């Protein structure tokens, strides 16, 4: 910017108000989690940590949490693994049908989640598959793979191809080149993709609700608790912890994403997507 500009105070004010709008619901979470009242309203009644204690003693919650953690771990691993192949194929090779296949892989980004969930439900029940955490993993992988592909593509994109060619010239096979040269360079992207997919899977509701059958999942458990007003503060406590966890994971993911782009010599052009 060589032109000297007036301070864009209007834009800045708007941006700050907009951020408040974006963050308002999240900022309320800890306020009500520590508020000594079952009713979520102002004025506040006093400070308490009893909702966290109540949360801690809820066996149902831990059961749901365990299922969700298993699903999130599996989802993040499989989606990142599949994303690696797709991102590598899309940045390195030209082949027939590339557009349609990549389009299909990215489709869940724009497809209403419910359509994804119900089509899997119909198909899995048609072949006599029982619903379980496994079916939730199948759905979550579909839903998160596009995110993994987007993150990993930007990591692969700025990869210098001459590094790879140099490795071939020095007698490395494609497999060993991938392991010794490419993988270390895109490692930060892999970590970032894993963390983002993990967070999204942990918080996801619609697919979990449709495909979990009788298995309790964390988000479905939270949804169920909203029907009982007495349990709502406990959910606020749980939500506070979840949001803190999410923000930590996302911050680490963002750190690795940027480091990954910097490592292969690119410049960060923006956010995760």
């Amino acid at each position: 910017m060589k032109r000297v500009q007036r301070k864009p105070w209007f834009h800045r004010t708007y941006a700050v108000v907009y951020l408040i709008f974006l963050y308002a619901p999240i900022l309320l979470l800890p306020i009500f989690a520590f508020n000594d009242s079952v009713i979520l309203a102002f004025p506040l009644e006093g400070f308490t940590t009893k909702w966290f204690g109540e949360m801690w003693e809820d066996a149902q919650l831990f059961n749901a949490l365990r299922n969700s953690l298993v699903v999130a771990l599996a989802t993040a691993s499989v989606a990142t693994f599949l994303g690696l192949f797709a991102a590598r194929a899309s940045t390195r090779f030209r082949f027939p049908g590339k557009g349609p296949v990549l389009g299909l892989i990215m489709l869940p980004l724009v497809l209403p989640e419910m359509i994804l969930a119900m089509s899997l439900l119909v198909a899995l029940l048609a072949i006599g598959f029982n619903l379980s955490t496994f079916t939730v993993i199948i759905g979550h992988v579909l839903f998160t793979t596009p995110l993994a592909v987007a993150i990993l593509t930007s990591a692969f994109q700025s990869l210098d191809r001459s590094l790879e060619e140099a490795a071939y010239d020095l007698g490395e096979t494609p497999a060993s080149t991938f392991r010794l040269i490419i993988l270390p360079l895109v490692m930060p992207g892999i970590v970032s993709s894993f963390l983002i997919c993990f967070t999204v899977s942990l918080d996801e509701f619609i697919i979990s609700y449709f495909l979990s059958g009788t298995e309790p999942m964390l988000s479905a458990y939270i949804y169920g608790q909203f029907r009982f007003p007495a349990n709502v503060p406990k959910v606020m406590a749980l939500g506070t912890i979840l949001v803190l966890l999410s923000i930590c994971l996302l911050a680490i993911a963002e750190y690795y994403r940027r480091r990954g782009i910097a490592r292969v010599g690119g410049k960060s052009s923006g956010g995760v997507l």
Partner: protein
Amino acid sequence: MEGTSGWARFRRSEAASGLSMIAPPGLYVILLLAVPLFTVLFVSFYTDGVTETGAKTALPILTFENYAEVWTKPIYRVLMLRSLMISLSVTFITVLLAYPIAYFVSFHVAPSKKSLWLFLITIPFWTSYIIRVFLWKVVLGYNGVFSSVLERTCVPFTDVCVLSEPMSFLTNGAVAVTITLAHAYAPFAILPIFVALEKIDRSFLEAGQDLGESKFTTFVRVTLPLSMPGLIAAVMIVFIPTVGDYVTPDLMGGGKLPLIANAIETQMLKLQNRALGSAMAVSAMAIVALVTILFLVLNRRFLRGTSR
């Protein structure tokens, strides 16, 4: 994957390497996305084979019954129209509010701080969706946060306040659902617009102003048309998923304002009538696709010559 000799053979052609590379995710989405979507299409055309006794008919019977029911029953027409209206207003509001933010980050934020701003904008989007929806209910509900703030917003030294007693902003379910959805899809709208704005060659803007355009006319005649691909992407990426949202109407509307997605959920999960549910979903998606295509055709002049 393949054995070493097979792998060596594959290496010779780029197409073969590419195909084998895309195979794992490709097969996954074909088997678990394409096939299920076609299954839904197929299921929507047959009578639910399960009879009252729980026995299944041997073969599915091809029928248009499900579609006849979806397209003739007034209730479904009401739900579909309501869904469309809400999705359209959510899209309009979200994109309208998102554009200035994308513009601010792209034009007025130092390049080194851009990723930080985008990170701040996307964080709320990654946190638990149902908790966010529920908190909007807390904000807008009877004696909620919004109501108590307005009750305390008074003219100094008088008793004249914006609100004199607690009230609910949820009585109009459509407004509450629209606000909540506009909040949920905000980052989806900001990112594509931001990307389009970033691609604009800044010298075009200087050229415009050198040729005597004001800042405003430069925006209308140069910046806005050049950012249209991002705007169009933002509209699509907000409009399409919001039609399938059923959590928000369920929690915010308290079941009083069902949308087409709620009807689909009821048929699929509660009534187990998957054939009718499928027919509804296919119809809804067909209408959404039609609206989207119409929108793209109307804006085709902005998309010409952009490769994305």
